[in-house]
């Protein structure tokens, strides 16, 4: 018998591949667009934070003139997006 969560699992896996690919091969803003779509489509998507940390681990450099030398920009924006999505889902139930 087919797992009732099969489609969600497939969709989740597709978003993993898209996010991984966007971090490595596409302009930085594409990552956030895919992240927003994933958060809209899936009930919870905490894995996004791991992808944010992954992106920071590859690209982040301590440069005072870029985000004040802050090296966790992707991670913080990912946490913020997950948090916002959760709050909005509870409030307006999309």
């Amino acid at each position, binding site marked *: 018998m087919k797992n009732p969560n099969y489609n969600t699992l497939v969709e989740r896996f597709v978003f993993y591949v898209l996010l991984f690919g966007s971090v*490595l091969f596409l302009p930085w803003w594409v990552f956030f667009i895919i992240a927003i779509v994933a958060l809209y489509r899936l009930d919870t998507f905490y894995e996004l934070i791991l992808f944010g940390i992954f992106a920071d681990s590859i690209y*982040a450099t301590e440069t005072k003139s870029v985000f004040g030398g802050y090296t966790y920009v992707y991670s913080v924006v990912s946490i913020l997006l997950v948090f916002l999505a959760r709050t909005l889902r509870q409030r307006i139930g999309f």
Partner: protein
Amino acid sequence: MKTNYLKRNRRTHIARLRITLGLVILVLFVVATFVIPMPSFISRIGLAIATPALVVGKYVSDASSEGLALLQSKRALIAENRRLDQELRQVSIKLLDRNLLKEENLAIKDALGRSSYEKLVYAPVLTKPSRSPYDVLILDGGYLDGISVDDQVLSSESSIIGKIVESGRHVSRARLFSTSGVATPVVIAPLNIETEAIGRGNGNFEIKISRDLEVEIGDEIQVPGLSPKLFGIVEDIYVSPTDSLQTLLFKSPVNMAELGFVFIVTEEDEESEL
């Protein structure tokens, strides 16, 4: 069947508590990460995961651009071949001249007891600056290839674009001088004016100097040293009647979007008898 629901005010209270908790965790995370920058072992794990995919991506991208070239018509290929042939002849003549000058330059330095020999390492570019907001290059070459932190990154033998900021086993990360807001000491070659070039992102720079200094479009900007490196060529000059400064705008000699490989200056043997 009887069902018990939470009272509305209790549900609202729990929701508010969750939001507050989430915000507190976020603020704590931001504060903690401001104090502790990204540990290098996390960076190395990330690069180790990314490198195989980046190498395969680079191979596929190179192969597909070659495949697309095969689809061009024969007439277009012949025309391009002729154009490139002409360009090659012109460049070869210039190169002869340049090689003679370089040999002469080295001979003079030797005679004066000042000689410098650079060892260059070829490194393919795995990711270009547009892929992250940090304006960095990921390079296929690490400390096993002799690349170390603070090594200069050149786009050609004599044109400098950045510096190595992290070096792993087989991969390294370079920061471009054009990173927004980064100041680099440079010299405007013809008048030997020392100043600072401020990065504006993606290979663009600006310099603010006194409007009394006579700088012209086409003047070379160099990084000073025993073997000065080309940094850029002045492309535009803005002078406002109410401003005592003039703004020089220029780009790196190479287009960052087309950058396929770089050279790393891994060591500079300098002999001085003076």
